[in-house]
């Protein structure tokens, strides 16, 4: 396989409802932005596309991807749809990588969207819950927040994680988003605000959960020859992994923790894994991506992470799957301040960084604050990671606050269901 680079990206502002624009126009906006950012790059350079969107129920339009391809003026070039629940965008990104790595295309467009405002929030939750087993899970009270609430309840039981630690994740991501004009719900919050907001599924309040959104995002991936021809400042996609788990979280048998290079079997002698408190697919995806990118100790070898924080709880669970800290340490990792940006004041007191390496997580604001238009989300992460590594946050956000000092390597993580599909991709500045 040959090296693959991300050469540009674009996103629309994520909003609760954008009835002024349909999915075709939103993707076109993101696409035109991405093209305009690279002088000399035009539609004629795109060899084909991958379109990522989750639910046909939300669009009430089958084969919506074909309409996007048409609207962007890319017919009769190759295209396909990729779908895998919440991980749809991450899977689309990796599918575009495959098209270039294999030599099938020199330049491939990954384009994703979701328009979730076409139904009310509770009907939307019902649609999302249809992505759980419709024989055994959905009819019992199908509700993803309920599933995640059960998972974190077990995480609290096993490891002593607290609701205040979870609330600090919401404080962090909403505060980061104050400097991201693309984000849907930037806010300055306190732990008290999060805990006193309406209870959705105990112990998760509404501020522990991401919001539904309308939005689109694109990432354009290309070969080395294309990068040289265009003279762009590329970011190399140096590692990829994808993991899966049983559709029903009730079905997860117990086994041993698949270890990362910096971990020891003795760390987890007593741990029944993955149970419902951890994501085996996330650990598996991370292990593959780290092996490919030559990462030995992720918290030291990575400069930032954009991960799938559909819930504050799943951000904490994912720190552990990615090996930023050990299983069970996710809550303490937050208390220490490790995933926070050094240059922002969050109104929180941290316990100190003796145990952990600082690694900013979701500097963009993540799903919690940016919103989660499902098929666009994984690509939104790619775009923010790309701008970080290019050093172009100021240019694209009109505010340089979130720009990390010379980051070399970032990780993006896309996640579906109760952990059914999970992708991890590593991006590196050249």
């Amino acid at each position, binding site marked *: 396989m040959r090296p693959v680079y991300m050469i540009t990206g674009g996103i629309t502002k994520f909003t609760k409802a954008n009835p002024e624009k349909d999915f075709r126009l939103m993707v076109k906006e993101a696409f035109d932005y991405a093209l305009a950012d690279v002088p000399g790059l035009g539609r004629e350079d795109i060899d084909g596309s991958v379109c990522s969107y989750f639910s046909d129920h939300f669009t009430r339009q089958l084969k919506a991807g074909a309409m996007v391809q048409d609207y962007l003026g890319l017919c009769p070039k190759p295209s396909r749809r990729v779908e895998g629940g919440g991980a749809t965008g991450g899977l689309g990104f990796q599918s575009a990588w495959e098209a270039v790595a294999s030599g099938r295309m020199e330049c491939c467009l990954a384009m994703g969207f979701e328009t979730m405002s076409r139904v009310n929030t509770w009907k939307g*939750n*019902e649609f999302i819950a249809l992505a759980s087993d419709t024989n055994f*899970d959905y009819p*019992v*009270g199908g*509700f993803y927040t309920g599933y995640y609430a*059960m998972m974190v309840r077990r995480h609290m039981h096993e490891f002593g994680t607290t609701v205040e630690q979870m609330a600090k994740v919401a404080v962090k991501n909403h505060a980061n988003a104050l400097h991201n004009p693309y984000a849907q719900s930037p806010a300055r919050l306190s732990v008290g605000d999060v805990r006193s907001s309406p209870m*959705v599924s105990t112990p998760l309040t509404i501020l522990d959960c991401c919001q539904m959104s309308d939005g689109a995002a694109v990432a354009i991936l290309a070969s080395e020859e294309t990068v040289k021809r265009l003279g762009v400042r590329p970011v190399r996609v140096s590692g990829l992994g994808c993991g899966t788990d049983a559709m029903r979280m009730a*079905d997860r048998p117990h086994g041993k923790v698949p270890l990362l290079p910096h971990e020891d079997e003795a760390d987890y002698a007593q741990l029944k894994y993955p149970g419902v408190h951890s994501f085996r697919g996330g650990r598996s995806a991370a292990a593959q991506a780290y092996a490919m990118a030559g990462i030995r100790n992720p918290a030291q070898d990575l400069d930032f992470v954009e991960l799938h924080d559909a819930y504050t709880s799943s951000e904490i669970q994912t720190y552990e799957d990615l090996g930023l800290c050990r299983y069970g340490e996710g809550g303490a990792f937050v208390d220490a301040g490790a995933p926070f940006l050094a240059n922002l004041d969050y109104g929180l007191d941290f316990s100190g960084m003796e145990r952990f390496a600082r690694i900013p997580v979701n500097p963009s604001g993540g799903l919690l604050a940016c919103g989660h238009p499902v098929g666009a989300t994984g690509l939104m992460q790619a775009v923010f990671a790309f701008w970080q590594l290019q050093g172009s946050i100021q240019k694209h956000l009109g505010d340089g606050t979130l720009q990390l000092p010379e980051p070399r390597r970032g990780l993006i993580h896309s996640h579906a269901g109760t952990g059914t599909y999970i992708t991890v991709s590593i991006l590196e500045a050249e």
Partner: protein
Amino acid sequence: MNKNAKLPETEEGTVLFNVDPIMLKYHYEIDYLHSYAQDSPFFAGLAQKKLLGSHCPACETTYATPRSHCMDCGGATHWTELPQCGRVHTFTTCHFGGEAFLKETPFTLILVEFDGAETLFLSRLLGADPDEVRIGMEVQARFVRNSKFLATDVYFVPA
């Protein structure tokens, strides 16, 4: 040929939700024929007040939520009756939910663990206030009398 051909019009209106942009509101409903297929014996079992799981004879694994083939070896499993007493593995009380379940809120979901089974079973817990539920508490299966052939034909109460 008729140059004056006209489409017959009806008196039915359209619900305009918004005018700029134009947004229509309409109802969408379908009848669907959902087959439980190989999972059918589980739902027949609920009607007989039995909780059926699956057992893989090769791996000696018992699945508390049935599956007709083993996730480890791929071999066919056989049906096995589960105990009707178990323990709460984890729980939540839902104050909101998907639209179909909003009218039932608040309701408590639990994952039940059974002695002798390697995996869990999702169900509802009745008869306990949200702050009375604990991980590890013993629960007992109950079955609705008028079977609906849904997974909710079984629910749990404190033992």
